[in-house]
């Protein structure tokens, strides 16, 4: 398996009035053409890890790493221009809520076409055809109608499908999905995950799936990284989640209510300071 992405000792630091805050503190992993889940609670640094790879860290923050390379390209040494060319073309990102991540004053079709024409030299008519085909691939039943709709006119599930279509149209090799289904209803969640799953495996892409939901991630991904306080506390195969060693991972698995498990009160996490050390 070829390595797509190598991350070694990634750190993201934010200067604040009360001192420097390290949101990500030495994260290392590598990604091939596989599905990797990053799980953690709010503030664990999972989203900042994804954003640093994408190059979307806020300008005041400082990103350092011994190595941050995508397909051999050193991302930290690359010029902003080179990174822009990568972003959207070879590395794509799906955000949590289509209500906020789609442009509200542009029709869905135009947004998809814009992405395509930014990265490839194609004519207007061909771009439109490819956008329609892509909308069909994400199982939108009436692509021609949805093409002309604005984001506020579609449901959350439809918006997220449009977002996936937009991200996949340039044929990226790696995709970062940051909580792609958290804003959706449970049943719609499964549809969207199904589409994502099919497209990722058909195209042989590498996927980083960022989520707070350990169980969802383990049912979807091949490998899972568990983060706590900016660090990786455990890496394991999704199928071996039941054999997790770290008390934080086990605590996270345990504290969810389950249908049929009569546990009152629910076990809670007993956070140890040494986990963050």
């Amino acid at each position: 398996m070829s390595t797509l992405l190598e991350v070694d000792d990634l750190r993201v630091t934010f200067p604040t009035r009360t001192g420097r805050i390290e949101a990500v503190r030495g994260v290392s992993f590598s990604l091939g053409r596989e599905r990797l889940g990053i799980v953690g609670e709010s503030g664990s640094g999972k989203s900042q890890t994804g954003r640093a790879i994408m190059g979307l860290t806020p300008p005041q923050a400082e990103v350092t790493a011994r190595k941050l390379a995508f397909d051999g390209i050193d991302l930290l040494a690359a010029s902003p221009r080179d990174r822009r060319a990568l972003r959207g073309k070879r590395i794509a990102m799906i955000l949590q809520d289509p209500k906020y991540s789609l442009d509200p004053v542009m029709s869905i079709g135009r947004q998809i076409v814009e992405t395509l024409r930014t990265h490839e030299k194609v004519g207007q008519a061909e771009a439109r055809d490819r956008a329609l085909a892509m909308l069909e691939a994400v199982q939108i039943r009436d692509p021609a109608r949805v093409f002309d709709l604005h984001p506020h006119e579609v449901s959350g599930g439809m918006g997220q499908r449009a977002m996936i279509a937009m991200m996949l149209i340039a044929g990226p090799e790696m995709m970062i999905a940051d909580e792609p289904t958290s804003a959706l209803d449970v049943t719609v969640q499964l549809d969207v995950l199904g589409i994502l799953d099919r497209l990722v495996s058909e195209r042989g892409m590498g996927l980083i799936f960022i989520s707070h939901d350990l169980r969802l991630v383990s049912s979807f991904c091949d490998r899972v990284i568990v983060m706590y306080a900016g660090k990786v506390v455990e890496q394991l195969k999704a199928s071996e989640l039941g054999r997790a060693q770290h008390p934080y991972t086990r605590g996270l698995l345990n504290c969810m209510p389950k249908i049929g498990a009569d546990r009152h009160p629910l076990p809670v996490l007993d956070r140890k300071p040494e986990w963050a050390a």
Partner: protein
Amino acid sequence: MTAALSVDRLEVVFDRFRALKGVSLEVQSGESFGLVGESGSGKSTLLRAIAGLAPAASGSITVNGKKLGARRDKAFYREVQMVFQDPYGSLHPRQTVDRLLQEPLAIHGFGDGEKRIQRALDEVGLGTGFRFRYSHQLSGGQRQRVAIARALILEPSILLLDEPTSALDASVQAEVLNLLEEIRRRRKLTFLMVSHDLAIITHMCQRLMVMQNGEAVEHLTAGDLIERRVSKDYTRNLLRASEGFVRA
């Protein structure tokens, strides 16, 4: 046993959209009752209609044997209080916790504010150290505890809970659910709880109602759900979805 809360053929209409289409339910005193459904199913609207935040077009709502009119009086809010979904939106950003908790006491003319505020904060597991903080100085779980303290400070008998933990991390969710259960046991409260998560509802409630498009699809007990004795496809779909992603 008497019904603490009963809703009879309730309709809620926004302009021409019927958000609730004749929904009926009865919650016994001391019971915990769940409402499940997807967004747009009308579960939150039902809760808001009971609290007087959504207009009822027809039908009736009865609380502790008293039929409610179009306007809610003060006595109603001493009996029924609500906890909202988003702890980031439901607390006043420029008021301290102390000020937030004093508001309901002032409205209802309670004298011993000092003692009540201390007791309410203790009850939700926040020490008095949190009393003079602003909500932006608190975490999501701490904010939701303040919202619960604010609901409890008037000693209501019925608590309306609108997705009280869906904005929280899983570990914090467990803490807040445990807190709610403990308070219900200690104060013999009646809960009406909305959630999209079947696992949370079976954990917290004895009976539940599944809703879709403003209508009641099915009435179930928690036991029915555990043993999968459900008759409607919609409920079956929700159950399947709650088990997570399965590769086709």
